[in-house]
C-alpha cells in the first residue's frame, strides 16, 4: 500500500516547483475503509469550465443528422456517442475516446438571458441586465446556492467554492478578472495565481482528511495479479484449443494494461507538486492539479475555472477577433484555439477519472463536469443551442455516453439551432441542483417558479417565435438526460 508522505508541502515546495522543476511526484491515491463504502450516496461534485467566444460546427458531433431517427420524447432526441465512427467531433478528437462512455453532448439548450459575453452564463443561465457591463440578471449562481445549502454541505469545508481563473493578462478586453459566480447580485472574483491558491489550500492542515484505509487502486492491482494467475492456470488446460489460448492471452494483456494505468497514482492530498509555469499549459496544469486534489481530498465540492486570455497568449491568436470572422483563416484559428481548450478539458476529465472513490466510482463518475461557452457562436452572439459538454454522471444522476438534442426538430447544421425551439438552459441548472440533493425551495425566489431569468423571452433573438412555450415549464427538469 502506498504511504502518505511524512511531511506537508509548503510554500517553498510550490516555489521550487514553479521555478522549473518538472519532476512528477506520484500523487497518493484515495484511502478508505470498506465499511465507509457500500450503498451510501456518493459525494457529488460540480466542476464548471468556461471558455469564451462560442463554438463553430467543429465542436458538435458530426452525426447530428441521425438524431431524427432517435426521438425519445417530445423535444428529446438521443443516440449513443459510441455509435459515432471516428472522433466525436474535430474539437472532441480521438483523445476523448477513452472517456466517450462518460461524456454527454447536449444540443438545443437555449439561454434566456440577454445575448452578450455573459461570463456568468454557465452557472446562472443568464447574463447582464442591459449589456456586458451591467449588473447580473440573477442574484446567485448555482454554486452559491449549493454552497449555502447544508443539504449539499452538511459539514463545512475550507473552500466551499474554488474559483480559478488561470490567466496572465487579466486586463484584456472582455475579461472582468472575475469568475463565473454571482453572489447577491455581485460577480465574484476568481483566483488567477496558482501560488496564492496553493498556499490557501495546502498550507494549513486539511480539516477533512481522508480516512486511512485501503487504497482501491492497489487492491485492484493486487487482485488482477491473482486473476492473471487464474487465467494462466486455465490456459494450461489440455481441453482448450489454440484459438482459446489466444483469446485468453489477449484478455490477460488487457488486464496488464489496466494494471499499468492503475499504477499511476493521481492525487496528493498534501498538495500537488507544481510543474513549473514556463508555459501556459503548465500554468493550467498547476491549477488543474490543485482543483482535482481539492475535490478529491474533501476541501471543496465545487470548482469553477474560466479559461480565457486575449491576444496571442493562447494558440489560435486573438480568439475574440477570430470568432467574429468567417474567413478560412479565422475558422482554422478558431479550431486551433478550441482544440487547445479541449486539451485542458481533457486534462481535467482524465485527472478526475484517475481517482477512485470509496464507493468504487471514479471522482469523475461522482462529479458533473461541464464545459460551457458564454455564447453559442461568436459572430452573431447567438444564445441558442449553447455548446455544452458534460463529463461524469454525478453518481448516476445523469445519462452518460450520449448526445442528446433538445430541439423540437433537430438540426444537422449547428447554425440552425436557432431555428427550432429547444429547452431552457435553466433546466440543466435545476437538474444539477436537484441531483446534488437540493429541492425547489432551495433555489426558487418568492413568486418565481424555476431558477434564473425568464425575463427576456421577447428579446431580439427570440424572433423565431415559440419561446412562450417556456412559460409554465420553469420547474421542469431536463427530460431523459436527467435520470434523477
Amino acid at each position, binding site marked *: 500500500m502506498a504511504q502518505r508522505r511524512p511531511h506537508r508541502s509548503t510554500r517553498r515546495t510550490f516555489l521550487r516547483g514553479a521555478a522549473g522543476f518538472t519532476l512528477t511526484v506520484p500523487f497518493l491515491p484515495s484511502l478508505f475503509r470498506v465499511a465507509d463504502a457500500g*450503498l451510501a450516496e456518493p459525494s457529488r461534485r460540480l466542476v464548471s469550465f468556461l471558455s469564451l467566444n462560442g463554438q463553430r460546427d467543429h465542436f458538435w458531433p458530426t452525426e447530428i443528422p441521425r438524431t431524427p431517427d432517435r426521438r*425519445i420524447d*417530445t423535444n428529446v432526441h438521443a443516440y449513443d456517442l*459510441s455509435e459515432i465512427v471516428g472522433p466525436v467531433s474535430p474539437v472532441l478528437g480521438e483523445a476523448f475516446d477513452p472517456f466517450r462512455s462518460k461524456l454527454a453532448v447536449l444540443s438545443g439548450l437555449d439561454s434566456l438571458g440577454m445575448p452578450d459575453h455573459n461570463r456568468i452564463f454557465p452557472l446562472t443561465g443568464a447574463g447582464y441586465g442591459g449589456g456586458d457591463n451591467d449588473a447580473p440578471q440573477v442574484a446567485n449562481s448555482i454554486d452559491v446556492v449549493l454552497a449555502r445549502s447544508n443539504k449539499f454541505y452538511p459539514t463545512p469545508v475550507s473552500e466551499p467554492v474554488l474559483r480559478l481563473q488561470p490567466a496572465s493578462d487579466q486586463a484584456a478586453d472582455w475579461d472582468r478578472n472575475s469568475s463565473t459566480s454571482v453572489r447577491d447580485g455581485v460577480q465574484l472574483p476568481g483566483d488567477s495565481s496558482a501560488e496564492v491558491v496553493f498556499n490557501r489550500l495546502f498550507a494549513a492542515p486539511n480539516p477533512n482528511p481522508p480516512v486511512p484505509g485501503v487504497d482501491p487502486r492497489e487492491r485492484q492491482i*493486487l487482485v488482477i495479479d491473482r486473476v492473471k494467475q487464474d487465467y494462466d492456470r486455465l490456459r494450461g488446460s489440455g481441453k482448450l484449443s489454440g484459438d482459446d489460448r489466444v*483469446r485468453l492471452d489477449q484478455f490477460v494483456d*488487457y488486464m496488464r*494494461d*489496466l494494471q499499468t494505468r492503475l499504477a499511476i497514482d493521481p492525487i496528493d492530498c498534501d498538495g500537488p507538486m507544481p510543474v513549473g509555469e514556463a508555459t501556459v499549459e503548465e500554468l493550467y496544469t498547476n491549477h488543474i492539479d490543485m482543483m482535482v486534489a481539492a475535490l478529491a481530498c474533501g476541501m471543496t465540492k465545487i470548482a469553477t475555472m474560466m479559461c480565457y486570455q486575449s491576444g496571442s497568449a493562447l494558440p489560435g491568436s486573438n480568439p475574440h477577433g477570430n470568432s467574429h470572422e468567417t474567413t478560412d483563416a479565422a475558422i482554422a484559428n478558431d479550431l486551433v484555439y478550441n482544440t487547445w481548450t479541449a486539451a485542458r478539458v481533457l486534462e481535467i476529465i482524465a485527472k478526475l477519472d484517475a481517482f477512485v472513490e470509496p464507493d*468504487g466510482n471514479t471522482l469523475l463518475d461522482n462529479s458533473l463536469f461541464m464545459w460551457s461557452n458564454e455564447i453559442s457562436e461568436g459572430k452573431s452572439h447567438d444564445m441558442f443551442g449553447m455548446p455544452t459538454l458534460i463529463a461524469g454522471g454525478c453518481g448516476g444522476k445523469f445519462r452518460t455516453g450520449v448526445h442528446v438534442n433538445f430541439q423540437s426538430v433537430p438540426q444537422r447544421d449547428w447554425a440552425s439551432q436557432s431555428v427550432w425551439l429547444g429547452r431552457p438552459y435553466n433546466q440543466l441548472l435545476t437538474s444539477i441542483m436537484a441531483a446534488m440533493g437540493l429541492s425547489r425551495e432551495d433555489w426558487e425566489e418568492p413568486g418565481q417558479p424555476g431558477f434564473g431569468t425568464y425575463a427576456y423571452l421577447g428579446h431580439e433573438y427570440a424572433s423565431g417565435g415559440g419561446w412562450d412555450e417556456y412559460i409554465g415549464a420553469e420547474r421542469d427538469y431536463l427530460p431523459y438526460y436527467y435520470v434523477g
Partner: protein
Amino acid sequence: MRRVVPRILALGLLVAFSGCYEGTDADPSGASGGSGGEGESGEGGPNAGACEPDQTVVSRPLQRLSSQEYRNTLQGLVGPTVLDAVRLEVDAVPADARVSDGLNDASGAHVDAYAAVAAKAAVTLVADPALLAGLGYPCLETAAPDEACVRSFIETFGLLAHRHPLTAEHADDLYAFYADPGDHDEGLVRLIMRLLLAPQMLFHVETGGELQGEDLKLDDYSVANRIAYRLLGSAPRAPLLAAAAAGELRTVEQLDAWAETLLDDPAAQEQVQVLFDAWMEVAGLPVLAPDDPLLQGLEPVELRAATLDEFTAFVQTLLWEQDATFSELMTSTQVFPASPALAELYGVPVWTPGESPPTAADRPGLLLRAGAMALDSNLTAPILRGVFLLREVLCSPIATPGVDIINSRLEDVDEVDRVATPTREAIETITEPVGCQACHAAINPLAFAMQDFDALGRSRTVETVVGEDAQVLATHDLDTKVAISLPETDSQELTGSRELVAFVAELSQTQRCFSQRVFEFTRARPAGVQDTCAVDQLLASMAEGDAPLRDLFAANIANEQTLWRRVED
C-alpha cells in the same frame, strides 16, 4: 421494419453495386446448398434431423459472455440491489454487435468495465452484510465470521460464479487469498473481486468432461450451462445445478425433459420474447414528432408503448397459451391492442388482457404487427421493409452501398415530387439503373407488395400525400401487385401484404432462416458453415411449419450436439 437504420443509410440501399449479395460463411437460404447439407438444406435436407456427430459437434473459439448474459449472470450472483448500484459500471461494458454480425472479441474496454464492476460490487456487498445475508450467506452478517462460514461462501459463490464446482485445491487457494490481508472485510472484497473476474465467470469455459480424441464429452455442469444460457440467457439456477450434481444431464432424453421444464419458466419465455424483439428489431421503433401528419392525431409516445405491448402480447399468447406453430405465428389474424390509440390504428375494439382477442383480417401474422412495421417515413418504408424481409426473414444477405453512393442518391430522393408521383413510381425510377437492379430486382417487389400499410403500420387502400400542416396534397392509387422470384420457387404473382406474408410463411427458406436466427441468438454468435447441419435439425423440428414452435426451442437443447465440444489445436 429496419427502422433503426438511419434514413440516409436506408436510402442508400436504393443503390447497389454489381454483386448484390454480400459474402457470409453460411448460406442458410438453401439456394446454394451451403455445406454440411450440400445442396439439400433448402428443404431441410434428407438428413435433416439425423446429423452425424461429425456434422454437429463443432469447434468454436472460447466466447465471452454477451453483454446481456453478463448482466443476467451478475444479477444472479449479487442480486438486484447491487446490480443497480453498479449499473453505471455495467453500462460501460461495450454493447455487442448484432448477433448475426458476430460477437465482438473482448477489448480493453471490456476489461476496464469488468474490473470496475467487480470492485464496486464487492465493496457494496461487503459494506452491507445484510445484502450478503439476503443472497443466502447469513453467517457473513456476524462481525467475525469463522473459517467454516467463509469456506461455505467460497464453495457456493464460487460454484455460481464459475458455474462449476471448485476443486478442493482451488477452494483452499481462494481461502488463503481471503485470509492474506488479515482483515475480514478486505479479504472478502478481494475474494469477490477475484471470483467476478475469473475466466470461468466472464467466458463460456467448457473444460469439464472427458476428452475422446479431439471431442470433449462435456460434464453435467457444462451441459447445464449450455441449457441455461440457451433458454434463459443466464447461468443455471439451483434446480439445474442440482441435476448436474446428480449426473442427470447426460442423455438427449434428459435434456428434453429439462427443456420442457424450463420452457414453462417465465424467465425462458421472456428470453424468447427478447429473441423475437431482436429479430423484428422492435427496439428501434420510432417516436414520431407530435405534429407528424402520419399520426393523424394519435399521441406518439403512448402509441409507441402500446405498439410494443401488442407485439409482446401477440408473441407470448400464441407461443405459450396457444402452442402455435410457425405457420400460425406468421398468419394469425388475432390482434392485442390494449390501448385505444392502437385499437384505432388497427381498426378493432380495444383488447382486454385475459379476454379473447379481436381479429383483423387485414393484418395476419407477426410481420404485420405495427411493432414490426412502423417506420418514420412513407417514402422509405417500402424499401426498408423489403430489405428487412430479405435480410432477416429470408436470410438473403444484401450488400450495403458506400456512404458516397448513398449521398448521391439522397439528392434524387429529395427531388421527388411527392404530389405528382406515387411512391412505387418514384422508387422504380430511382432504382432503374442496372447497377441498382442487382439488389432492387429482389427488394422492390417485396417493398411494393407491402405498400398497403403506411409507415406507421396503418392499413390503407390509397396512398395519401400530406403536407406539414396535415392538409391532404394528393392521393394516389396503390399498386401492390408484384411478381416474386426466390431461389426455391417459380415466379409468383401476388397482390398486397396479406398474400405476401402467407407466401413467405410457407417457404422453407423462411422457416430455415428462423431456425438460423434461433440458433444464433441462443448461442450469441452467427451460424457458420459448420453449423449447417445443426440448423437443419432445428428446421426439421418445425415439421414444415406445422409443429408447435415450442418443439423448436426444445430441440435447440435436446440434441446430441449439446453434449459435446470439439477441441482443435
